[in-house]
Structure formats: C-alpha cells, structure tokens
C-alpha cells in the first residue's frame, strides 16, 4: 500500500536537515543507483526525515518486484538441462479388441437375443479398453518416475559440482576396496578446492543403507582418520556430500568411505568400501 503524505516536498526536518534533498535521492537509492557519497548521505539523514523513510519503504517494495521481471533465459520448469534419451516404444501385451461391425437393428422390430449379444460385446470391449488404458497409465507413470529419478540424479551431480567454482581444484577417484565385499560398480569422485578447503564427494554404486546406518567420508594421515562428514545414498546407490575440511586435504595421504552408525563415528569402525590416494 502506498504511503500517503501531506508534508510539502521541500520540507526540512526540525533539526535543519534538508529532507527535500534526501527525497530526491530516495528513488535512485532504492535501486542502488546512488553514488557512494549520496548513499552515505541518504543513510545518515533518513532518521531525521520520517516522510522520506516512509517513501523509501514504498520504493523498496517496487524494487523487490523488479526481481521478478527477469525473462526466462533458461526455462524455469523443465528440470533437465540434458535431453531425455529416447525410450523404445512399449508394446502392449494385450491385443487391441477387434470390434465387430455393429449389426443393423431394424426399426420397430425388437430382438432381445440380438440386444443381449450387443450388450455383451460392448461390455467385453469396455473391459478390454479399460485393461489397455490401465496398462498405458501404468507405463506412463513408470516413465514419469524414471524421469523424476534422472532429474534427481542430475540435480545431485550438479550440487556435487558446487565447490569447484574458483581456486585450485583437485579431484581423485575412489575405487572399490579389493579387501572387502563391495560391488565392483561402486565408485566415488572427490573434488575439492584447496583455496577454500571445501569440496564434494559424488558416489555411485553403493548399496542403500538401513535407517540406523550411514556412510562416512574420511581422510587419512599416518593412520589417523579425520571425518569429512556423513551421507546416504538413494535407491540407485547415488549420493553426494558437500564438506569443509578442517585441515588442508593435501596434508593427508588417503581417502576412504566406510559404513558407520547413523550419527557417524569419531573413527572408522568398519573397513573402507571405496578408497583412493591423495
């Protein structure tokens, strides 16, 4: 709601501050267009000019709305930035019902037997169509689920890339530990930024865990393990961890992921499932 004011535009506050000068700057100030000295002037005078402060509130509402007029350079709603793979057409297991030519019904000559046959054929047809519709509904639902899963995986991978924005970036692959029973598909990539001491882990192929378990990422130096955080994987075995390292990662020799109790452990309690060297 716009603030209504009755004060003349060239008013001054009782303490002599020129509120008219301030009000001239308010529109530009609201969108950040004032020069530094003008900005300082506005901020120092606002408390003495309540009308100007109220006016600024209105302009800030307007400036907030400016945020929402940006055109969609990239579409907002489609969740995928990569084209969806073309899926092969699904063949229905039911043969489409063959509909017989409708018999001609002669006027004024009701035939109960023939009507019964027509009704039965219509009922069978309805059942068959219902079955086919249900089948296709099921297929579409499944494809939508697949698409959602792919979108989630893509988003997960994108989140894992967040730390690599600037600075010196390193990455290491973690492979299955041959000494434990873990899928050969298990794989992890650790990316970190040595300028910020932040990084991320992107994991695939690890088995989903029960609620009382979690995975934990470790960096190891001379037998001492330091935790970089805990994470879980989804039903496809994919997971991410964004972490901040308490110490420079380059000071460590190894990286590993172990299975731990849900809250994590101060030190690994099980062998590393995937391992890598720094």
């Amino acid at each position, binding site marked *: *709601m716009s603030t209504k004011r009755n004060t003349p535009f060239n008013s001054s506050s009782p303490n002599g501050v020129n509120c008219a000068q301030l009000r001239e700057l308010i529109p*530009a100030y609201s969108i950040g*267009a004032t020069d530094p000295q003008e900005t300082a002037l506005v901020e120092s005078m606002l408390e003495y000019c309540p009308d100007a402060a109220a006016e600024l509130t209105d302009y800030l509402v307007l400036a907030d709305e400016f945020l929402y*007029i940006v055109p969609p350079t990239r579409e907002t709603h489609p969740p995928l930035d990569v084209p969806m793979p073309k899926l092969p057409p699904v063949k229905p297991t039911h043969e489409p019902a063959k509909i017989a030519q409708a018999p001609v019904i002669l006027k004024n000559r009701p035939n109960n037997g023939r009507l019964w046959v027509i009704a039965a054929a219509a009922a069978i047809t309805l059942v068959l169509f219902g079955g086919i519709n249900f089948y296709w509904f099921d297929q579409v639902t499944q494809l939508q689920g697949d698409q959602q899963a792919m979108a989630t995986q893509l988003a997960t991978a994108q989140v894992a890339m967040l730390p690599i924005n600037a600075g010196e970036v390193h990455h290491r692959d973690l492979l299955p530990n041959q000494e434990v029973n873990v899928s050969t598909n298990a794989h992890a990539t650790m990316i970190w930024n040595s300028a910020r001491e932040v990084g991320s882990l992107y994991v695939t192929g690890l088995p989903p865990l029960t609620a009382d378990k979690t995975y934990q990422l470790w960096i190891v130096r001379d037998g001492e393990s330091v935790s970089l955080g805990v994470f879980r994987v989804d039903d496809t075995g994919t997971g991410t961890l964004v972490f901040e390292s308490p110490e420079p990662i380059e000071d460590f020799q190894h990286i590993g992921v172990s299975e731990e109790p849900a809250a994590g452990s101060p030190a690994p309690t099980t062998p590393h499932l995937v391992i890598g060297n720094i």
Partner: protein
Amino acid sequence: MTNHPSPEDIELIQRIKQRDQNALVEIHGRYRNLVYNMAMQVLKNASSSEEVTQDIFFQVWRWPEKWDPEKGRFTSWLLTVTRYTAIDRLRRENRQPPLSPHSLDHLAEFLAKKSPFEDVRRDNGRLLRALIKELPKEQRDIIMLAYFRGMTHTEIAEQTHLPMGTVKSRIRLGLQKLKEAWFEAMEQPSTEPE
C-alpha cells in the same frame, strides 16, 4: 501482493540448516534456473552466469541462516543476493557488456517476454513489465542500466555521455511514475475470476 515466505521454502532451509543435502538438491533443482536467469540478465555471459549460480547455492548451503523469513520471501532474498553477486563479478572483471543503442533496446526487449513465474508473482511481474513499457524510453533505459548493471549516477553519466543532472532526473522521474502507477494498480480490485 504477498510477502509471506512459502512453507516449503522455510522447511527446505530448515533442513539445510540441519545439513540435509537432499534439501540442497531440492532447492537447487527448484531455483537454479531462476538464479541463472538473473545472473544472465546482469552478466550476459553463460559461463559466468553458471559460475555465479553455483556460487549462490554454495552460499545457501554454507550460510542458510542469512535468509530471514521474517523479512520476506526466499526467492526475493535469493534473487537479490544473485543480483549483487553478479554485479560484483561484473565489477571485478572490470567489464560492462557493450552499451550500444542496440543493447539498450535489448535491455528493454525482455519487457515483452513471458515471466518464468507461475504464481502470483507472474501477475505482478506482468503488470510491472507493462508499466515499465509505458515509461518514456529514455527513462526506462537508464532505470534498466541502474538496476541490472548495478551502475550509479556517475557511471551511467560516463557511459551514456549524458549530463549528470539528466541521469538523475530521468531515474527519479521514471521511478516516481512507476511507483505511483504500481500502487494505483495494486489498490484496484482484481478483475480476474477467483
């Protein structure tokens, strides 16, 4: 006009505060294009905009408490941070996208485009775009420069070779008209069906 934060955003940020990475994945999926669009509007460079987008979500992950739901919507905060981050980057790179008459036209061109929002923001965005289009071109162009390029009075005067007084009066008069028209339109009852 609603300034209430959505319960979903509040919940997602709460989960991020508890270091739930799935919440980060969700909020990233929900708003990454919005952030990218704002960055692109300022930077006019796809790879820089991607980097700013990553940086913004990294900031959300590290400092989720910076958004105060009491002060407004999450998207407003997110877009404001994005705008300032992109403008900072533009300044650090010491570049400004070229300021030809064509680029000024381009800045105003988007006013005719469809908003990416599908809620009440869409209607407000559409209304504000229509109102901006009604401004005299010389006022509109300078307001767009100030807002999306982060340029101050002095910088605009230097770039456009206009007298400082002209720049100031165009911004002031343009925004005054816009504000009056905006609140007048907001006070009118909606003609759309409920």
